[in-house]
Structures are given as structure tokens and as C-alpha cells.
């Protein structure tokens, strides 16, 4: 434990992000050819994409963006009113896009945002035009195919007024990639009365380091629903996405499902700044440590009267070693706010395991069933079809995990 003089509180050693040596990664990657037909990706790439929720066959999808290393491999929209392209292309096509660049995320925030600015390697631009509501989600995949490289992407997602945009985004590596650094800037803009459902699944490799930097701005009556799932090993992941609710009645919900393998270090939080009347926020995190380290952060800040927000963090220790550190924070700058939090960290109750064993399940099966139940995605409030997709993805990951 370290006593932090400035903040005046005891701060465990773990609650610090791991340092990364950016220079230890290759800045250049081989250029990959554009694929008109996504089915032509290799079998290995396909398998790893699928386990991150990205389906190269594009069944039940409204469009797809795929980037491998530093190359845009595929970008197309299958639904009128949805735009799917690389951010490089979008900046050429839409002059106004400059106004959205580094607006939600501050360029100077840290060395990673600066790196993404200095050495950009594309990223995606996804946009639903006003009032457009597609049945199927868009999918985006940021893939690391070459070992030891750095991938810096900048993504912008815009749900224009009254639109309903669903996105599945999966990040994955080729099976032979061990080491890499992914820096992803994502800026979300949810306009008046729009709804954006963003579900991100990470499927990295043992030695990959990941630094997403994300922020959303939600206008009046808009809904931003952000789901994050990370069940596979990763060396270190640190992110603290933020949503600013700037219009009356805006809503943000963050759901995170994290599984830390031995050797994985996950420092993940969600932050919502409630700046407008009647705005609502909910942050839910379910974390499991099977020997890895997890810092589960959450921060709600109420700046106007009449807002309502709740933060929930539950952690489960399933191995002798490991570490879960839940840090929920509530902050109010005015009176008349309604904010609450609940946090619980523990191991699986013995009586629950024995209850399942008395029905004939082995101890391992009982434990896996309880952990699976704990990582239940129905908390995510996804549309039915999307829920099924995500569940399938998770159950395919779980086969490897448990």
C-alpha cells in the first residue's frame, strides 16, 4: 500500500496503470490488399474474427469494416442510410468531420492519444443518417495480423437525430501473433433522440497491450449503450471510457464483462458525467479473476439537479491467486442528485457449488455454470437478435476459458 499525499488516501500499488514502452513496437506493417469478398480471409483469420463477434460472411449484418494492421481490407454498407468507411476516406468525403475530430476525446490526454495523432493508421467511420433504423448491426473489426507491431486507430461513430444504430466491434489477432500494441481512439456522437448500441468484444493475445481511449457525447433524449466483453488473455488493458450527457433526458449505460487470466492485467472503468436535467446513467461491471489482476473502476458525476445514476460492480475470485480491486466513485457538484453504488467482491459461495453438485454436476461443472451465469449478458439490454449473436460468441470463448 502507498499513501498518496496529494489525494490524502491510501492507494494500493495495483491501482496504477502499467507503463508501456511504445518504442519497443514496430511502427511499420506490410500493406494488405483490399478484399472485395470478405470470405477470402484465411481460415485462421476467420476463426479469430468470429470469436470477436465479427462474421466475414456478413449474414445478419448491415455493413462491415475490417482493418488488418495498418490496411483497410474491407469497408461497405449494405443498408441505405448507413455509412461505413475508413476515417481517412471519411475526412476526405465530409469536410465537416473535422469538427468531430478530437472533440469528445482530448488530443493531449496522454502519450497514447498523442501517438494516435502523430502516427495514425486509419480507423473506422460509422454513421447512421437521421431517422435511419437498420434491423441488423454494423460490424467493425480491428485485426492485428503481424507480430510486434503498433496499431493506432481513430474511430468516429455518429448516430444522427432519431436514428437507431447498432454496432458490434471485435478486436482480434492472428493465432501466431503474440505481442502487439493497440491504441484505439473512439469518439461517439449520439444526436437528439438517437440510440447507439455499441458492443465491443476483445479477443487479443497473451502479450498484447491495449489502450483504448473513448468518449461519447449524448444529446437530448439520446441513448448510448456501451457493452464491453473481454474473456481472453491479454497482457495489459487500460481504459476508462467516458460519456457526457449534455442534453435533457440523455441516457448512458455501460456494461462490462471481464475475465482476467493469470498474467493478465485489466484496468477498466466507465465514467458518466451527467450535465443535463433528467439525464440517467447506469454502470454495471461483472469481473472474474482466475489469477489475473482487475481494477474495476466506475465514476458518476452529477452536475445538475434531478439526475439519477447507479453504479454496480460485482467481482468473483475463482482462483487462489489473483486480485480484484473495485473502485466506485460518486461525485456531486449540486444538491438534488440521486446517485448510488453497490460493490461486492468475493469467491463463489460453497453452498451454491454444493447445491449444484447435489444435482450431479462435478465441482468444476458447478463452478463453470456459476461463473457463466455471473457473466450473464442479459444485463446488457441488447436487441434479441444481437443478444443471441453475443451469447454465441461468448459461449465459443467460454469453451476455451473454462
Amino acid at each position: 500500500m502507498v499513501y498518496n499525499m496529494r489525494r490524502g488516501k491510501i492507494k494500493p500499488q495495483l491501482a496504477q496503470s502499467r507503463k508501456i514502452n511504445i518504442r519497443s513496437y514496430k511502427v511499420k506493417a506490410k500493406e494488405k490488399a483490399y478484399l472485395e469478398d470478405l470470405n477470402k480471409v484465411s481460415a485462421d483469420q476467420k476463426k479469430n474474427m468470429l470469436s470477436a463477434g465479427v462474421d466475414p460472411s456478413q449474414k445478419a449484418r448491415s455493413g462491415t469494416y475490417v482493418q488488418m494492421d495498418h490496411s483497410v481490407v474491407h469497408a461497405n454498407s449494405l443498408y441505405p442510410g448507413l455509412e461505413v468507411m475508413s476515417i481517412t476516406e471519411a475526412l476526405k468525403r465530409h469536410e465537416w468531420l473535422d469538427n468531430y475530430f478530437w472533440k469528445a476525446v482530448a488530443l493531449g490526454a496522454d502519450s497514447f492519444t498523442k501517438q494516435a495523432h502523430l502516427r495514425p493508421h486509419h480507423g473506422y467511420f460509422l454513421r447512421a443518417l437521421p431517422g435511419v433504423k437498420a434491423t441488423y448491426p454494423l460490424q467493425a473489426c480491428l485485426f492485428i495480423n503481424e507480430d510486434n507491431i503498433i496499431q493506432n486507430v481513430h474511430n468516429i461513430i455518429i448516430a444522427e437525430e432519431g436514428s437507431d444504430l447498432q454496432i458490434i466491434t471485435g478486436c482480434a489477432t492472428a493465432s501466431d501473433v503474440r505481442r502487439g500494441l493497440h491504441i484505439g481512439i473512439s469518439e461517439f456522437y449520439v444526436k437528439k433522440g438517437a440510440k447507439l448500441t455499441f458492443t465491443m468484444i476483445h479477443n487479443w493475445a497473451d502479450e498484447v497491450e491495449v489502450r483504448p481511449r473513448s468518449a461519447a457525447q449524448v444529446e437530448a433524449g439520446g441513448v448510448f449503450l456501451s457493452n464491453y466483453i473481454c474473456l481472453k488473455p491479454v497482457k495489459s488493458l487500460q481504459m476508462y471510457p467516458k460519456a457526457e450527457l449534455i442534453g435533457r433526458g440523455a441516457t448512458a449505460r455501460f456494461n462490462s464483462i471481464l475475465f482476467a487470466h493469470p498474467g493478465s492485467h485489466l484496468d477498466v472503468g466507465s465514467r458518466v458525467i451527467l450535465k443535463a436535467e433528467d439525464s440517467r446513467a447506469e454502470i454495471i461491471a461483472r469481473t472474474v479473476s482466475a489469477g489475473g489482476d482487475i481494477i474495476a473502476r466506475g465514476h458518476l458525476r452529477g452536475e445538475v439537479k434531478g439526475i439519477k445514476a447507479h453504479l454496480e460492480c460485482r467481482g468473483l475470485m475463482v482462483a487462489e491467486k489473483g486480485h480484484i480491486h473495485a473502485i466506485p466513485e460518486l461525485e456531486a457538484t449540486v444538491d438534488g442528485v440521486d446517485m448510488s453504488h453497490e460493490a461486492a467482491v468475493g469467491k463463489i459461495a460453497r453452498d451454491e457449488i454444493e447445491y449444484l453438485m447435489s444435482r450431479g454436476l462435478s465441482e468444476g461443472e458447478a463452478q463453470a455454470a456459476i461463473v457463466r451465469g455471473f457473466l450473464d449478458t442479459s444485463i446488457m439490454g441488447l436487441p434479441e437478435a444481437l443478444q443471441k449473436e453475443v451469447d454465441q460468441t461468448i459461449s465459443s470463448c467460454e469453451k476455451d476459458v473454462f
Partner: protein
Amino acid sequence: MLKIENLTVSVSGKDVLSDINLEIKNGQRMALLGPNGSGKTSLLMAILGFSNYQIKKGDIIFKGKRINDLSIDERARLGIGLMFQRPPTVRGIRLRQMVDLIKQDGFDTEIQAESLHLSDFLNREVNLGFSGGEIKRCELLQLMASSPSLSLFDEPESGVDLENIALVGKMMDEMLKKRKENTALIITHTGYIFDYVKPDTGCILVGGKLHCIGDPRRILKTVKKHGYEWCITCAGEKLSHSSHSPGK
């Protein structure tokens, strides 16, 4: 089916059962009576091998096999099932998933849930916010799904209204009648369940000791008249005597 020999069990270092001798034959239904805290639930838990219940001495023999050293799930897979009195809540696992995990071939979850008025509960997390009657029906559904040859019922009628007792009792009876070998050990305080599941024999546990074995209805009648304490007065008598009225 089940034979218990000189069984002494302790919980946290304290004996809760001492020198229990008991035999339940194939297809038999035995009622287990006794006041609160007498060790009835402990006996069921020890038969299934729950970790808090340490066997200090004696043997549990099921279908001719000593099961003392088997894990809970191994005992369950041999054919022992328990209807818990107060089961834990299992967050995140829905009743349907639970039944699917444990059911034997040919068990139709939907139809059986319907027959126990549990159709609306299949998508709920197991025991979360369930009422007394709902818990019993949910337990029974799981027991029916796993289809044990020895069913242990821990107070199937406690905390349940009359209507639910009738439903639970009827379904218990139906389940037990499915196979000739189906055997039951039923803990009851009130004996209401006897209206639906007719026991062949009964016994009384007081203070962790088994005191009498005989006609369950007569035992119950005697207990109602004289109280459990009376049982202790015949503690020295042999367990195998068949009748139970004082003065006989």
C-alpha cells in the same frame, strides 16, 4: 437401498448425530420425525456428503456400496437426490438452464414445469425471490428431472399453503410411483404430507439419536399427544420395536 451403520456426524466439531443405525429397503418410504434441531437435516446432508458434515465414525452404504468417501456429485450420480428445505439462491442460473443441466433423457422440461405451475419461473434465476411454495415446487422439478432412486425430502410441506401441499404431495407420489425401486426418506413435522405420500415406516430423531422405528402414523399420533420428549424415555429400548404407544 440405504443402510446406515453406527453413524456419528459432527458439524464444526460438535456431534449432531450419534450412533445412527437405519435401513431403508428398496421401494420403501420412510418418514423421519423429530423436533427442530434434532439432526434431521444433518442426516440428509451427511447422506449426500455436504462438506460441513464430518463423519466421525460409521458407514453409509448405498446400493451395497460404501459411499463415505464419495463426493456429493458422485453420490448424486449413483442415484441420491435431495429436496432442500432452504436451498441457496443461485444468481445467474435460470431454472430452465438448471433443469437442462441435470435432466435425464426423456424429461420434458416444459410439460413438467407446467404440471408444477412453474412455466413462468423457467426463465427466472434459481430461487431468487421465490416464495416458500415456489421453492418447494422448484426443488421438486429438479428432483423429478434428475430422477433419483433414493429421494430425500427435507420438510416438503414447511412454509407451504394447503393448496401447494396438495400439489407437491401429489407430484411427489407420482414421481415415487414411476419406478418400483424408487425409495424415499421424508422429513416432516406435521405429517400433512402423509395424505398424499403414504409412508411405510417412520422413525424419530431427538438430540441426534435415533429413538424409535415403527408405524409413522402411530408415532405421529403419539408425538402429538405426548410430545417428542417422551421419545427420550424409551431411548434405552431397541430400535426395531414395531409399536409405539406408551404403556404397551
